[in-house]
């Protein structure tokens, strides 16, 4: 059977080479894009780092004193959004994956997915027209009754368009994507592990605590990171809803609120000229770096207990 013996000798198949080649190509496209974006950002930013008030009219003094409050506001708003959105989206995801009846669950999942499609402008319009007026009386009540608590100290905003409102809008915006990911992950929990917990006499919540949540931990972190990325970078909704000034304050309910980098770019870019444009792009670079650092930390958290991860 010498024919067969030569048959097993063949050169690498072209299909394989083309396919893996194009996969590598696609991967390197990402590299190229990213390099281009980074290059663009850095080149455009360099003049800003050394600019002073004379060069760029929007700078109070140096670039860093300009970006500092914005950075604070960006992180503060995103943190507020995440504090609200993470527990709620885990709740919704659990409700859909483990509490709601099967039939209902897929419909509910679809409805929540749809929220992801609402453009940020519409969230902005809704935030201004519906949400802010609705929460303003609650804010007023909070300031009157628990105003001693530093976060809630007055004077209350007359329109309700505070950083807390922006946080709520952001939370609503990031909910769908976070819920979708958490839900998918929770649904993937091996039935084996769920049944193992139940067979030990766990209640539903205990089963979720022992089997579902640990299994979904990395997924939850991924979801939170994607949500955080979106919250950090969200532009229009924040620009429209937030009553922004350059303040650095933790107060949640007053008219004076920190602005965010992305919103500030949207607000200032149309009137920007000369070095001011570079300054705004440089703030974009800072935002880029912050988001990346957050991502890296999340990766690290996920990988730290890899050994114990559910993926086996």
């Amino acid at each position, binding site marked *: 059977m010498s024919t067969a013996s030569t048959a097993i000798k063949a050169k690498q198949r072209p299909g394989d080479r083309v396919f893996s080649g194009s996969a590598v190509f696609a991967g390197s496209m990402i590299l190229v894009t990213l390099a281009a974006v980074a290059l663009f950002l850095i080149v455009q930013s360099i003049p800003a780092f050394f600019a002073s008030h004379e060069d760029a009219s929007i700078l109070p003094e140096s670039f860093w004193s300009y970006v500092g409050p914005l950075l604070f506001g960006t992180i503060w708003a995103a943190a507020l959004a995440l504090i609200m959105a993470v527990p709620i989206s885990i709740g919704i995801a659990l409700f859909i994956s483990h509490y709601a009846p099967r039939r209902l669950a897929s419909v509910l999942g679809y409805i929540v997915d749809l929220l992801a499609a609402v453009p940020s402008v519409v969230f902005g319009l809704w935030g201004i027209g519906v949400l802010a007026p609705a929460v303003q009386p609650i804010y007023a009540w909070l300031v009157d009754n628990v105003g001693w608590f530093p976060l809630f100290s007055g004077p209350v905003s007359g329109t309700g368009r505070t950083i807390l409102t922006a946080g709520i809008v952001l939370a609503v915006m990031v909910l769908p994507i976070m819920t979708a990911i958490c839900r998918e992950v929770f649904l993937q929990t091996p039935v084996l*592990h769920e049944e193992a917990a*139940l067979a030990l006499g766990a209640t539903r919540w205990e089963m979720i605590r022992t089997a579902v949540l*640990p299994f979904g931990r990395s997924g939850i972190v991924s979801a939170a990171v994607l949500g955080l990325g979106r919250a950090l970078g969200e532009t229009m909704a924040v620009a429209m809803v937030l009553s922004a000034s350059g303040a650095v304050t933790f107060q949640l309910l007053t008219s004076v609120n920190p602005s965010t980098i992305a919103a500030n770019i949207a607000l200032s870019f149309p009137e920007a000229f000369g070095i001011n444009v570079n300054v705004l792009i440089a703030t974009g670079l800072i935002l880029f770096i912050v988001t990346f650092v957050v991502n890296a930390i999340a990766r690290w958290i996920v990988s730290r207990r890899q050994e114990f991860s559910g993926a086996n």
Partner: protein
Amino acid sequence: MSKRIEVRDLNVYYGKFLAVEGVNLEIEPRSVTAFIGPSGCGKSTFLRTLNRMHEVIPGARVEGEVLIDGNNLYDPDVDPVLVRRQVGMVFQRPNPFPTMSIKENVLAGVKLNNKRISKSDADDLVEKSLLGANLWNEVKDRLDRPGSGLSGGQQQRLCIARAIAVAPEVILMDEPCSALDPISTLAIEDLIEELKLQYTIVIVTHNMQQASRVSDKTAFFNIAGTGKPGNLIEYADTTTIFSNPSVKATEDYVSGRFG
């Protein structure tokens, strides 16, 4: 620490599909009962009704009575959580919690109930359970390593340790050895031998030698054809089933030349 199980006129459904029909059965405390039968005849399904794990599957339900020491499991105000604490279960594929260490795995069931177990109590319980599951010597040096790092047989014994750590009175086992090599299988069979001094044990197996080796009584289930419900054909002492069954189908099945 062990219980008598009585099953009366039990029908088991998946949604509209009747999977097991009209089972009547009595299981004595401190004995090992084996369920045998061809694939799809409803052994696993029936086994899972004994600790209300069946109802975990959406749409699954049950008609009839399962009495444990005279108390019907399916009474409306019975709490399935309590049932499962008294009736433990070991599955076909070992399923230690991958996010937990060996020790945490053993304590998983106990921690649910009694959060504030002292460290020394916990250590004692871990040792006792692992000793009970014949695993202590193999893992005592690496209790903090993930449970998923063990071999299949070790994982299965870890699951048994986890099940006995909550001190159940009945242990259900669904083909606990089918994924294991003979040495691990032997270890688990030895373990069953020991456990039966304290617990009531029900085991599903495809391996007839195993059934004849470990069980006191054997129940043979059969199915008339796909889509038909499974039935309990014969239930008797293991020796009777294997040497002198009263039903033809049983004889055919156990006298197959395989095992």
